[in-house]
């Protein structure tokens, strides 16, 4: 007799290992495809999986097979018009009409498959790591905090919750004694009635007295506190974000920053944000825009509004420093900053920016990235920042000339530092 087995719950994902092997083997091709996919689409799309396509020939599994040529007999079904001895032209593309014998000769052009979002991100960030991930980040084990979670009926004596237990006991005592008490009261009333009628010594009264005694004993026997009543405070482990980061986006919105440049800056910020989400559980983003004065704004305003006038970059740095001191103590926050500018700045202001960075901001931050967009030749800010870069490992600067440059620049900025 047949045996019927329900296997649905066992052994899912048996191919997971093989799939991993596949990804591992073709990681170079996949990484390349992932990079192409990134530059080819909107940055906001990054939060989903990706279709990866690899040329089939790269992953062929060769076997010995016949090449074309020689003489072959092919038997085909569905003859309509041929009779023996007919001579027919070869179909286009060699022996296409009859691949009868070996189906392995020709394959599809591309092997296409889906990467999940997580896998895609893995490839995207593979060679990158946040620079100097030194603080709490390295230990990936999340910190836990005990949190209250109601009451349970079993637990450690030290967690005994007295008030709760007593409340529970009251309820139980009331419930358990309710029946006998009613009977007791009734019996007493009857007895009182009998006594009032002068029948206090009758056999009926004695019977009642006995009953009362028994009932009193029953009421008294209800325990004051029973094991059922005990309640314990329940505490559960709750993961706390072991690492939190704040990301400052600084952008020049003076007249010289046009929509295209802002667009490039925006993509850079978004990429940075996405990257941080890989490493941190909680990320605050602070947007600071500036022209001659700096202002903390909402994201919308940050990217969309436009100002005219000159540029004083130090105003943004001042504001950033104030915000850090006020809201983000560097002992508990990982601080990242990205500044985007077209390089325009008042000449007098640039040395001030340098000093602010070196003395005020860089000691507090994990990393400060400066990107200059579309500047034709370096201006004063760039030159001053070059000196900052020479002085600090936490500072990086790059130029972005077109949209397509963003990704390579991004990689360059956050290239894994050899410890």
């Amino acid at each position, binding site marked *: *007799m*047949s*045996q*019927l*087995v*329900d*296997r*649905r719950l066992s*052994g*899912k994902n*048996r*191919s997971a*290992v*093989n*799939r*991993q*092997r*596949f*990804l591992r*083997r*073709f990681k170079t091709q996949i990484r390349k495809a992932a990079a192409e996919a990134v530059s080819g689409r909107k940055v906001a799309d990054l939060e989903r999986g990706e279709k990866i396509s690899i040329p089939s020939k790269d*992953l*062929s*599994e*060769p*076997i*010995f*097979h*016949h*090449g*074309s*040529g*020689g*003489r*072959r*007999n*092919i*038997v*085909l*079904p*569905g*003859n309509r018009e*041929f*009779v*023996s*001895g*007919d001579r*027919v032209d*070869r179909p286009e593309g060699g*022996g296409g009409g*009859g691949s*009868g*014998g*070996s*189906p392995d*000769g020709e394959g599809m052009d591309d*092997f*296409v*498959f*889906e990467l999940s979002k997580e896998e895609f991100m893995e490839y995207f960030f593979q060679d990158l790591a946040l620079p100097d991930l030194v603080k709490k980040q390295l230990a990936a084990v999340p910190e836990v905090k005990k949190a209250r979670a109601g009451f349970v009926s079993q637990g450690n004596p030290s967690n005994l919750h007295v008030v709760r237990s007593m409340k529970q006991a009251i309820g139980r005592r009331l419930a358990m004694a309710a029946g006998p008490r009613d009977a007791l009261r009734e019996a007493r009333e009857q007895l009182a009635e009998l006594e009032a009628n002068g029948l206090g010594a009758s056999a009926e009264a004695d019977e009642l007295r006995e009953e009362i005694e028994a009932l009193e004993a029953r009421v008294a026997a209800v325990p004051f506190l029973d094991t059922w009543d005990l309640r314990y405070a329940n505490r559960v482990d709750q993961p706390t974000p072991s690492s939190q980061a704040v990301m400052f986006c600084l952008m020049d919105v003076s007249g010289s920053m046009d929509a295209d440049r802002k667009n490039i800056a925006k993509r850079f910020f978004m990429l940075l944000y996405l990257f941080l989400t890989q490493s941190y559980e909680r990320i605050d983003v602070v947007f600071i825009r500036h022209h001659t004065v700096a202002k903390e704004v909402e994201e919308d305003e940050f990217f969309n509004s436009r100002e005219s006038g000159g540029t004083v970059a130090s105003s943004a740095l001042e504001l950033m420093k104030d915000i850090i001191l006020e809201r983000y103590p560097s002992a508990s926050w990982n601080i990242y900053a990205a500044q985007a500018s077209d390089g325009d700045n008042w000449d007098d202001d640039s040395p001030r920016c340098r000093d602010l960075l070196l003395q005020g901001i860089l000691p507090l931050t994990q990393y400060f990235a400066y990107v200059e967009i579309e500047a034709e030749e370096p201006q004063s800010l760039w030159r001053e920042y070059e000196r900052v870069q020479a002085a600090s490992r936490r500072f990086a600067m790059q130029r972005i000339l077109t949209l397509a440059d963003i990704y390579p620049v991004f990689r360059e900025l956050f290239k894994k530092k050899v410890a």
Partner: protein
Amino acid sequence: METRPEIERPAPVSQRREPISEGSEWSFELIDRYDREIARVAAHYGLDTYPNQIEIISSEQMIDAYSSVGMPVGYHHWSYGKQFLATQKGYKRGQMGLAYEIVINSNPCIAYLMEENTLPMQALVIAHAAYGHNSFFKGNYLFRTWTDAEGILDYLVFARNFIAECEQRHGEDAVEELLDSCHALMNFGVDRYKRPTRLSMAKEQARQAEREAYLQSQVNDLWRTLPAKQSAGRQQRAPRFPAEPQENLLYFIEKNAPRLEPWQREIVRIVRKIAQYFYPQRQTQVMNEGWATFWHYTLLNHLYDEGKLTDGFMLEFLQSHTNVVYQPPYDSRRYSGINPYALGFAMFTDLRRICEHPTEEDRRWFPELAGSDWVKSLDFAMRNFKDESFIAQYLSPKLIRDFKLFVLVDDDRDEKLEVAAIHDDAGYRAVRQLLAEQYNLGNREPNIQVYAVDVYGDRALTLRHTMHDRRPLGESTPEMLRHVARLWGYTVRIESVDADGDIRFAARSDT
């Protein structure tokens, strides 16, 4: 083509229908009841099967099973991952339905049912896999000779554990490289004529260590005197090695490759054993699928005639069945070779027709079949043939006409293709013979054998490709030689011999 015989038709009990169930939702209880009914009818027709183990799985698990080429337990390799991704993609996009069925040639015979399927589909798969394929596995001579249904599961477990252990000891990359090369040669890792020994895990494990030591000593012995002084006289006297050409490349490598480590030899052996296990399946595709399809059709129709199945059930069943046995014509966009289900089903159905209702033509072509007991004749055909001989023996003129088969000759010395034979009196025999040849694995794959090893020289291995109809080797040859060279450890050459005996150097790969 209504050919149900009167004797087989159950007495028409006043046309009363008592279906096993209505509705199309399955439950374990219903599957069990259908299975009992199908088993009863299968026994009535004398199908001899291994015990069945029917497993309900989800579609994800079906994709898994698909990707490991139907092995219930497989070692890890990227190519299975590739297969998995391809299947998954196809399934998700709805480009293809999932396996009609997967059934494993083991004892007990494991058949998978997918939970998404409707009840009629489950019944169809049970009839097809658990009774059709199962009886084929148990009865066909190739399976009886080459595979050991008792031992295969144990052996696969042994193989997976051994390879996993090797990965730990020698690194995943080393094992992967080796497996790549072995897989490339898998089709050349079968004995076509020698009987294999039985496989079982206990024996394998016990003997593996012993074999390791022994093999290594043998190999070393072969090469011990090397490199010897090369005197011309000695070379002349030296016997050629191997004394005769060897067709089983992997076997030759396992036993003789000078530089393989013992664990590498064992892996070559594992791949070879698995290739051997699947070899009968590759040789009996048409028969196997045809047999299973014929029986699911016959068994379910029998149940319907008994009134056990509803009309709705039959409609759904027939719709799937019809899709499966459709043969698109050669110029259709859906054409991708001859559909083994279609050809096999048609041949077994036709065999039954010849037995029961032979025409004058059939009596001429199949005098011994016409009028015989069809159950016995089909059983005989199932047991004693493989695709090539089955077609050569049983393809009838009527089927050649039904399929409108014709032969096209593609000769590179001729600028046109020539129609050599069609479905007419003059062509039947040619069509039948050439179609049979098309299923000869020896014709499909180039004939490559180990020809010589330069034992006293640079240890180079020479393969010889014997050309058939002047067909050359494909463009993958240099890559393939690299794989052979990786296993052999020294230079590998391949030469082609044409019909006139002229030897032509084809390619070489140095290590």
